[in-house]
């Protein structure tokens, strides 16, 4: 098997709030196999050229959602995205930056916590298993595979322009709304989170690393807003 190599020029946004007044870009060159992922480039920079570079990752297989970065302005999972000869690597927007490529997820986690993303029951859980239609269970599992990587939130033009929490949160609310045991008013939560500000551009669907469709979740909520949920609350 033949392998070809590639030399990548990576401009990485550096910012240490303790030392820097303004962010700046530092250029690195990395040579490796041409099927390197962006994360391989970042790790190589960290291990060989800039030991003080802050970045984060965990699983390396696109499951944990922690390695989200913007490459040439497009939010991606660094462990999944193939490297390019010239890359400008930045932390995800619009989140506060802790250092270099690491964003502060405190607000994200707080938002998830506020949404109470467990089934809100009218009666206490009996402890017995509750049967769910297999097709619905599979659909719920699919919705539950959201990585919370914030790639969709970073890509969303409505988040940048309007008071909208982001597609990821609406997707989670949709997951709960479809759960048969949940009786919370998820539609109202979605509206409160700015769901109506969505442009319907489907960019979140196109860029989702888990092949989910937050845009479809938003559309389903909007349809319910017009025609009703058909579910007792």
């Amino acid at each position, binding site marked *: 098997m033949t392998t070809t190599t590639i030399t990548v020029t990576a401009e990485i946004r550096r910012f240490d709030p303790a030392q820097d007044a303004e962010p700046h870009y530092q250029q690195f060159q990395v040579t490796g196999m041409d099927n390197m992922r962006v994360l391989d480039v970042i790790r190589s920079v960290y291990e060989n050229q800039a030991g003080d570079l802050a970045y984060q990752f965990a699983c390396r297989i696109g499951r944990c959602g922690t390695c989200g970065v913007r490459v040439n302005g497009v939010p991606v999972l660094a462990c999944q995205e193939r490297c*390019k000869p010239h890359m400008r690597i930045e932390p995800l927007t619009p989140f506060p930056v802790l250092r270099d490529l690491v964003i502060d997820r405190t607000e994200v986690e707080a938002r998830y916590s506020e949404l109470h993303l467990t089934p809100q029951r009218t009666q206490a859980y009996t402890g017995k298993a509750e049967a769910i239609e297999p097709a619905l269970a*599979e659909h719920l599992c699919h919705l539950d595979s959201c990585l919370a990587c914030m790639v969709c939130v970073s890509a969303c033009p409505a988040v940048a322009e309007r008071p909208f929490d982001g597609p990821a949160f609406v997707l989670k609310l949709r997951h709960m709304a479809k759960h048969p045991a949940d009786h919370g008013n998820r539609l109202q939560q979605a509206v409160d989170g700015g769901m109506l500000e969505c442009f319907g551009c489907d*960019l979140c669907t196109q860029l989702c690393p888990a092949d989910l469709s937050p845009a479809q979740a938003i559309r*389903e909520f909007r*349809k319910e807003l017009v025609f009703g949920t058909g579910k007792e609350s």
Partner: protein
Amino acid sequence: MSAAARLPRNTTRQTDVVQHGTIARILHRITGSVIVVFVLVHVVAQSVLQVPAFAAVKAGAPWLPVVQNQSWIHALLYFSIVFHTLYGLKLLLTELGVRIGYRVSVWAIVAVSALFGLREVLRYAGL
């Protein structure tokens, strides 16, 4: 294998792909602006050309009828009206539950709109 058990794509080239949603959103915004500007300019221009009280202004603007007969302006206007209408309808239908693919729909709407624009160019060319 069920969708839930499948691993995500193991390789992405998201930085290379055409962002259909961005193109559609920007075109929708531009065409909407074109329509608004056209309506405003059209009202003023027709006033100048038709209202006797503006005869002096009309005499000072001999270029106005020439501008009004530019084929590319009509092509741009027709493209804008058709694109803005169809994309708006597409957004409405999808929110009412109709499944319409975001990739194909954008280019289909651009193609139909371009046909209307082209028709204007050909009409002015006498074809």
